[in-house]
């Protein structure tokens, strides 16, 4: 049987739905940042990203070369937890974007809870729930908007990789 045959079908279906929702939320935030502030390309903000020190969560156990169920679930949960913290640090991004940011945060936290509970049911949940490391400090509304572009762009690629991993776990 495949590496993920122990994952229940309903869990996987819920995961795919939640991932598509988070991606849709992320796209909505990106579209609004582009329309309202002309911040449309993460490539234009690489330098700022370095300066701000925006961390990118590891997803090695979910890559096709080293696919490993427990490691992938743990990294997926850890990454979602990190993105929750990053999005929280963006609070005050702008009154117009706040609702979109709130929805994204709520959907990510729902998804993270779903992953954590599945790990518990599989008995592979880390002994200690993760704690948030130091977050970058965004000192101006521009930095929060630029941070929004960078974080959502990273989040989309993170989810793309996780989606492919879960797809392969879904194959019997």
């Amino acid at each position, binding site marked *: 049987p495949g590496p993920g045959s122990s994952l229940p079908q309903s869990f996987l279906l819920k995961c795919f*739905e939640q991932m*598509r929702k988070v991606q849709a939320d992320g796209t909505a935030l990106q579209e609004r940042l582009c329309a309202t502030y002309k911040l449309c390309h993460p490539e234009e903000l690489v330098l700022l990203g370095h300066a701000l020190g925006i961390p990118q969560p590891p997803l090695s156990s979910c890559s096709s070369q080293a696919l490993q169920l427990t490691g992938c679930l743990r990294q997926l949960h850890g990454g979602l937890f990190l993105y929750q913290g990053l999005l929280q640090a963006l609070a005050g991004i702008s009154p117009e974007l706040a609702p979109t940011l709130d929805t994204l945060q709520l959907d990510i936290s729902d998804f993270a809870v779903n992953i954590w509970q599945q790990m518990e049911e599989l008995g592979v949940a880390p002994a200690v729930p993760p704690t948030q490391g130091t977050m970058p400090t965004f000192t101006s509304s521009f930095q929060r908007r630029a941070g929004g572009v960078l974080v959502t762009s990273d989040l989309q690629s993170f989810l793309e990789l996780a989606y492919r991993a879960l797809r392969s776990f879904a194959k019997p």
Partner: protein
Amino acid sequence: EECGRISLPTPIVHLGDPITASCTISPNCSHLDPESQILWKLGTELQPGKRQRLADGRQEFTITVAHLNSPRVLLSCCLRWGTSLQILDQAEVQAGYPPAAPHNLSCLMNLTTNSLICQWEPGPNNHLSTNFTLKSFKSRGNCQTQEDSIPDCVPNDGQNHCSIPRRHLQLYQNMGIWVQAENALGTSKSPQLCLVPMDVVKLEPPTLWALDPSPEVAPPQPGCLLLRWEPWRPSLYIEQKCELRHQPQPGEASWALVGPLLSQTLQYELCGLLPSTAYALQLRCTRWPLPGHWSDWSPSLTLTTAQQ
């Protein structure tokens, strides 16, 4: 100085229960001579009071109503004063029942308002002001154990529905929900529901279009119609199935049902229809294979099949 003051054991009693009220007359009520007669006015009906002299010299007149049979009674302590009847004090007594348990509690997850909307039936009128509160908690298992509580949802006055906002929900986790009814005579609870918000999602109807013949699209066969549809945009991330119904117009014949169908189809040929006949067509979708409620039917699309 005050002449009379009514005191009641409780202002609210069970309908049909007895109640005893007393009217205490202060001694220095100058207009009162020892023989003055105190009368009770129960609603509009006059009744004598039983006289008692208290240790401190004050007089007390009591009245006992065997069965209080109307939800609201005005009780007045009156003094016959010459030809007139003077009202010294008045009290309002309410009668009713403890609230019945609310029933038929049901909830829908509304993706437009992004809230869980629950409604219930309050049960028979208990004649008393009754507060309904929608209570809920997040739970891991099947709602036996409570993880985190959720703030009470208080409906607007007189309404029997309440919306729990998105920020209080975990869309993919079980939650226990019930309605509490409370009035002066007691509290009751509806049976508890245990549900996952997303599993009670009700989608808005999909959009159904006719597919106009074009270079790429050959005109439909006789007795066929060319259609395309799209699910409600905010639900694109949800895997769904749909079903189509059609009915020749004018609509005596019953609807014919076609399904299950994919939630998104750029080109669909519906055949087996009568030629040169107008048909009303409607589509609805539901979350699938994960649980959900069927959307309402889409607005009717009327198309006519080609001649033979």
